[in-house]
């Protein structure tokens, strides 16, 4: 537990509205975890459906507090763009990680865990564990 610096969360969706709404939902369900740096990176720069490398880089930079950044994505080009940016090496802050998690449930788990002051490994584990929440 780092205590002071919180892990940043970036939510990448093909839709700007989905990314922004899931960010609001996660913060709301985390009991108003206002201290957690969460940034949506949704849609293309032109406002259409898709993925923007620039928006992802900017969002990651904006939530980096030095404790790492967990990036959650929806599907397809969102996943591939984050992986390509990570492979570049200098496009995302040090300690940025693509987290393999369901988008909505994983975002909630990540924000709650980050709000508790957990480190990036714990945030990643909590988000990934959301895959095991069976609904039926």
């Amino acid at each position: 537990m780092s205590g002071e610096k919180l892990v940043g969360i970036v939510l990448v969706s093909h839709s700007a509205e989905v990314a922004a709404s899931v960010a609001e939902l996660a913060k709301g369900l985390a009991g108003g975890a206002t201290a957690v740096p969460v940034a949506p990176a949704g849609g293309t720069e032109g406002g259409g459906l898709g993925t923007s490398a620039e928006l992802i880089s900017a969002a990651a930079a904006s939530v980096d507090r030095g404790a790492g950044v967990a990036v959650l994505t929806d599907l397809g080009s969102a996943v591939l763009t984050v992986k390509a940016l990570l492979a570049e090496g200098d496009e995302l802050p040090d300690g940025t990680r693509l987290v393999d998690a369901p988008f909505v449930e994983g975002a909630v788990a990540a924000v709650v865990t980050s709000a508790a002051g957990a480190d990036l490994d714990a945030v990643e584990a909590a988000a990934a564990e959301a895959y095991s929440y069976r609904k039926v």
Partner: protein
Amino acid sequence: MLDAAFFRRWMTTAAASVSREAERLTALDSAIGDADHGSNLQRGFTAVAAALEKEAPDTPGGVLTLAGRQLISTVGGASGPLYGTLLRRTGKALGDAPEVGEEELAAALRAGVDGVMALGGAAPGDKTMIDALVPAVDALGTGFGAARAAAEEGALATTPLQARKGRASYLGERSIGHQDPGATSSALLIAALADTAEAER
């Protein structure tokens, strides 16, 4: 030997070809995808041509890494990181050499295609761009014309395949009977390379 000017011509030739064929790529993508492949690649390669005109890198590796960076940041769909990775990995494999031979280009392109397979997780036969690129790289040792023919043949051969990667894979058996848009645009990229090489002679 192939210099930076050759690689810049390859990219501008590819940009022109993608613009010319954008409607056909989008039509193919509307059958089994989300109908944006042509417009996405057109936007990406237009940005590539503009960046190369502005910065004009003086090595083959520099041209391809800049082009790949542009594609990753401007395409907006999965083809952006995939083609971006193809060109960047190829460019990095070419290093800082001011000129490269055809064998070096073939080896570098193979590294680029390996990078695409690692990123997207696709293998030959999955009905993706890999089905045009792998045969093209295999044939490049024989010559640019052979690579173009192999890529076009590979793209056509995706029609009877069932998609196993990307959005088209959601369609299951209904993806059968449609030529893959990514394999088609990959064949255009290889054809642009062959056209550029033939214009030299």
